[in-house]
């Protein structure tokens, strides 16, 4: 039997068929769909393997007094958790219990988890790993347009463009089927690394601008400057549809191309040429990704890219625009329905009295009982077990000891908890540290909806029954809520009922899902939010007006500032982190899939050959990358096109190979995004001297002989 669903990984949510014959291992293959156009990357192709993996958890685990895990039945596990939570709340107050969610959860789970935190636990302490992904772009999008939907247009629109600028995005590696929409446009790729996407740009007559890590904001200001100085501003559009250009320009005025070159290393002439290419295109898009967003100034950096797009008159017109490329599977829906510390469903603000009254009405509770805004993701993790911080943490669909910055610090904080509960389908690194592990169903075993990077609603289908002993996240939340004294009907485990309630709770909000129904999705309708009624769909936002009260988009007056930490003699290099094709996020899933783990079994560090030689590191040597916070072991990969001042590590690996042992938890003042992309580091040989690839002695850089 073959049924259509969507890939469990990234926000592209490629359509695929899953074959599930009795007695046979399930298998996935690509399906035609407007977003993936029949494509699928190796992660999607191999995604079904984990459904039948022997590494799956099939019974709740409880830590014993001896310190090891023992399998228990569900009642024992849930009773234990509920009792401990109740005791901790009574002793320390409701904020003693915290919840950490995920951009991988379905809309229904995201919604019910947020409601569970606010109503069943009464805690303000809920946030999610999407804070580490989308928060800077979301904050900047809201600031500029009054609304944040990753791509405010359908993905296939990109194929009609002449020029697409990709800032800190590497879809050729991270979401390959997206490149099917980017084959025709000339690409301008902004990335410190010569990525697969940058190669693609150069092959097709585009450009690769390689700024020093941490200087994207300066580059965006320099591009705006070059646009203005070459007389390329769309002045009619700026006058009719925007406000604030002059104040934004004041900051860009200090970034003439030659000045920008000095700070970013991007030649002034390339800056001018990129500005001309964007302005001359009959259709152009500016897209941002994590590379430009995961900084302590990520929000302002995205604002600077949006300013550039606005000056060129791109957003709010069919055939051009600005968008952010959402990362996690439900990174879009996950940020709309109340997992975020400051949010209620429908992208409402938790400090808005009208929003509180509406949502409390749907929930049947007194608005005064709803908590206020809580701590953001890293601040929440950093407060665990400390004075005034939470004593218990419930984790759903996330592996923060690998994916959060300054990983050793996060491990230490988790160790200080009285109770750590995780819901996961494998024993992730975070689950392994816990007191209780609840085994939950996977993507192909449960119903639900996802919202992809375009704001398109997708249906995830139950193709298989979960293995015996496994429950869905909704069943877990429902079971815990009941044990915490909530009426059963307030926390239904049936996804269809949750979706209906989500619709009511989001009605009238920015992300209005009230007209979403399974019937519409089943009938193949293309449903993009906002969906205020049963016929509505909004493939393209902002065509008539932006979402601010005056209908105009707002330029943000943003200036450049240096990264949170600088290089010095002890830490002379910059490390930046990112993804590879064969792994997803913390790797908890993909490292357990044979083909993917076989192709990339361990961490590596990309190093310019001269830099490698100076550190005594040859191709294949084991390096210790050391920052002011910790160290990571990685296999050296010499890369000619790397910047000599920059090394790159993927963050999919755990323990002593975790790139996040290095990263800096300096936070963006607005989005609270950590500075994943810039850490000062040094390189040291880590292997024994006779290990393969270890250089006999530090090689001096010299011209090749002969």
């Amino acid at each position: 039997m073959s049924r259509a669903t969507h890939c469990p990984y990234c926000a592209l949510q490629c359509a695929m068929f899953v074959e599930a014959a009795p007695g046979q291992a399930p298998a996935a293959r690509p399906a035609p769909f407007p977003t993936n156009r029949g494509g699928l990357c190796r992660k999607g192709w191999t995604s079904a393997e984990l459904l039948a993996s022997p590494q799956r958890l099939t019974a709740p685990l409880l830590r014993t007094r001896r310190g090891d895990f023992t399998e228990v039945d569900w009642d024992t596990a849930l009773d234990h958790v509920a009792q401990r939570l109740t005791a901790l709340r009574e002793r320390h107050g409701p904020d003693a219990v915290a919840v950490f969610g995920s951009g991988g959860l379905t809309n229904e789970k995201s919604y019910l988890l947020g409601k569970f935190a606010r109503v069943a636990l009464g805690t303000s302490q809920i946030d999610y790993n999407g804070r580490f992904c989308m928060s800077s772009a979301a904050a900047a999008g809201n600031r500029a347009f009054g609304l944040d939907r990753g791509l405010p247009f359908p993905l296939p629109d990109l194929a009609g463009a002449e020029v697409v600028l990709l800032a800190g995005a590497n879809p050729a590696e991270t979401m390959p089927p997206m490149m099917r929409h980017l084959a025709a446009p000339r690409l301008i790729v902004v990335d410190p690394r010569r990525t697969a996407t940058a190669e693609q740009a150069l092959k097709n007559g585009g450009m690769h601008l390689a700024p020093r890590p941490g200087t994207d904001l300066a580059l965006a200001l320099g591009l705006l400057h070059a646009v203005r100085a070459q007389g390329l501003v769309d002045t009619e559009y700026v006058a009719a549809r925007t406000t604030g250009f002059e104040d934004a320009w004041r900051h860009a005025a200090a970034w003439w191309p030659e000045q920008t070159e000095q700070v970013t290393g991007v030649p002034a002439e390339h800056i001018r040429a990129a500005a001309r290419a964007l302005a001359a295109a009959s259709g152009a898009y500016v897209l941002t990704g994590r590379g430009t967003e995961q900084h302590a100034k990520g929000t302002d950096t995205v604002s600077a890219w949006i300013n550039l797009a606005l000056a060129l008159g791109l957003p709010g017109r069919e055939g051009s625009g600005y968008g952010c490329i959402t990362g996690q599977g439900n990174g879009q829906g996950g940020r709309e329905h109340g997992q975020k510390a400051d949010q209620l469903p429908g992208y409402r603000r938790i400090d808005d009295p009208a929003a509180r009254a509406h949502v409390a009405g749907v929930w049947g509770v007194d608005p005064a009982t709803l908590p206020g805004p809580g701590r953001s993701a890293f601040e929440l993790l950093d407060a665990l077990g400390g004075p005034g911080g939470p004593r218990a943490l419930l984790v759903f669909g996330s592996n923060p000891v690998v994916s959060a910055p300054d990983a050793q610090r996060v491990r230490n904080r988790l160790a200080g908890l009285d109770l750590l509960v995780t819901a996961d389908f494998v024993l992730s690194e975070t689950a392994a540290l816990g007191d209780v592990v609840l085994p939950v169903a996977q993507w192909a075993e449960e119903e639900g909806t996802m919202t992809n990077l375009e704001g398109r609603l997708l249906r995830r289908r139950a193709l298989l029954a979960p293995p015996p002993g496994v429950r869905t996240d909704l069943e877990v939340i429902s079971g815990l809520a009941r044990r915490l004294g909530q009426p059963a009907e307030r926390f239904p485990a049936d996804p269809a009922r949750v979706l209906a309630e989500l619709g009511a709770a989001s009605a009238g909000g920015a992300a209005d899902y009230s007209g979403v129904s399974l019937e519409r999705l089943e009938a193949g309708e293309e449903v993009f939010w906002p969906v205020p009624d049963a016929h509505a769909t909004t493939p393209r936002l902002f065509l008539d007006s932006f979402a601010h009260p005056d209908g105009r988009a707002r330029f943000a007056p943003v200036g450049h500032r240096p990264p949170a930490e600088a290089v010095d003699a002890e830490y002379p290099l910059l490390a930046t982190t990112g993804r590879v094709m064969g792994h997803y996020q913390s790797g908890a899933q993909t490292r357990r899939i044979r083909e993917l783990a076989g192709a990339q079994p361990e961490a590596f560090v990309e190093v310019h050959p001269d830099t490698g030689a100076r550190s005594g590191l040859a191709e294949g040597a084991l390096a210790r990358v050391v920052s002011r916070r910790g160290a990571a072991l990685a296999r050296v990969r010499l890369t000619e096109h790397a910047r000599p001042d920059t090394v790159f590590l993927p963050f999919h690996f755990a323990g002593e190979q975790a790139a996040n042992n290095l990263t800096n938890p300096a936070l963006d003042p607005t989005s609270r995004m950590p500075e994943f992309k810039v850490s000062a580091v040094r390189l040291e040989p880590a292997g024994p001297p006779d290990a393969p690839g270890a250089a006999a002695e530090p090689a001096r850089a010299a011209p090749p002989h002969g």
Partner: protein
Amino acid sequence: MVTDTDTARHVVVIGNGMTGARFAEEVARRDPRGERLRVSVVGEETEPAYNRVLLPGVLAGRYAPEDIRLPVPETGAVSVRTGAAAVRLDTGRRRVRLDDGTALDYDELVLATGARAAFPPIPGLSAPDGAPEAGVTALRDLADCRRLAALARPGGPVVVLGGGVLGLEAARALTERGMRVSVVESAPWIMRRQIDQAAAQILARHYTRLGVAVHSWRVAARWIPGTGLELDDGRLLAGDALVVTAGVRANTELAQAAGIEVDRGVLVDDTLTTSDPRVHAIGDCAQHPGGGGGLVQPGWEQAAVLADRLTGTRLEARYTGARPVTRLKAEGIELTAMGDPEADDTAETVTVADPHGGRYAKLSVRAERVVGAVLLGLPESASAIAQLYDGDTPVPGDRLALLMGRAQPEAPAGQPGPAPLVCRCNAVSRDDMEAAWLDGARTRDAMARATRATTGCGGCIRDVDTLLSGWNGREPIAAT
């Protein structure tokens, strides 16, 4: 915005130019609510602060004067007074008196008074009171720009006296406005301080091609209003206007009169403090042992360091000298210079000259560090080398490749790479495909089912089709 004026210390900044305004911005970023510092900026010009570096662009018509204004910090803790000059500094009472009769008391004083054009002692340039004579102007501020625009007419002749960076930028800007321009430089070659003679010759050819007459090693004899500039060899260069870009003099008078130590500029140490511990100096008026006058970048670095110190953000911050990179801003000419353009033979120097192509590259390296470089017409290597110089980081082994903009590292010793992939997304090699073809995959769809090739980004579709048609074409042979 309400600020806590009870505990915040008062900093008075004299000078609302690029450095003074930047200092206020840097303070506002570190102390947005004015809890630590209250800043008063006093500027002599009546206009708001603007970006002096872009004046040639205003001259060229690329920017309107209001386009080059600098941001004013959005905080009540910074106030700016324009059109007011400081006339007397009393360091004992910590009070500065302004020309409008008012006075400001300070806890800390920052001198950011900048520099003014220095006119060489040539007859006819300036009146006895120091004011420029008819037809003569400097290019230091917007008033000069307006004056020059009024003097020169499109198609008419203009003489630029001084072939340094500003003079050459002005000359290029004036040609964009349609003027006929002559440049006179008394040194043996143009940009004498930044580049070597060989580079200057190629640069001069660029200018000649743009219609600019370059006269190097020529001394001006006198300016004849309405006629032009007479040179010491008797030649007369026609000119409706004379733009004097022959150097600057730091504005040190206020400090000197207050008894603060002054040489060519106001002397400062690594903390940017003058001989008076409460008085600091940054930008073109300051003289630091590490140099850095005349370019904006060192002044901005000084502004950041002083803001770190005075706000207490980083009390250990020090300015230890600049590694300035000179970048000529002239439409169509890409020139970058840094360090010593004529390093002695203790440095390893690579030089490539291409007069025909208008390109020139020179790189001097000592102890694996860039000590000087000149790059003309090579924008990519210029930015790469400037970054190495700025960071004082080691230079790649292959210097020539670095100069040519394609740094080829030493090849890793004889390690055969993995077989190249046809489909990167699904890691499918040519061998994998051939095996699938032998197993019967004859079409793209069949190949996709068998190997997954073409199902990722789709970029390999053409390659796969080519391979398939090749193999299918030899099928009779393969079948035997």
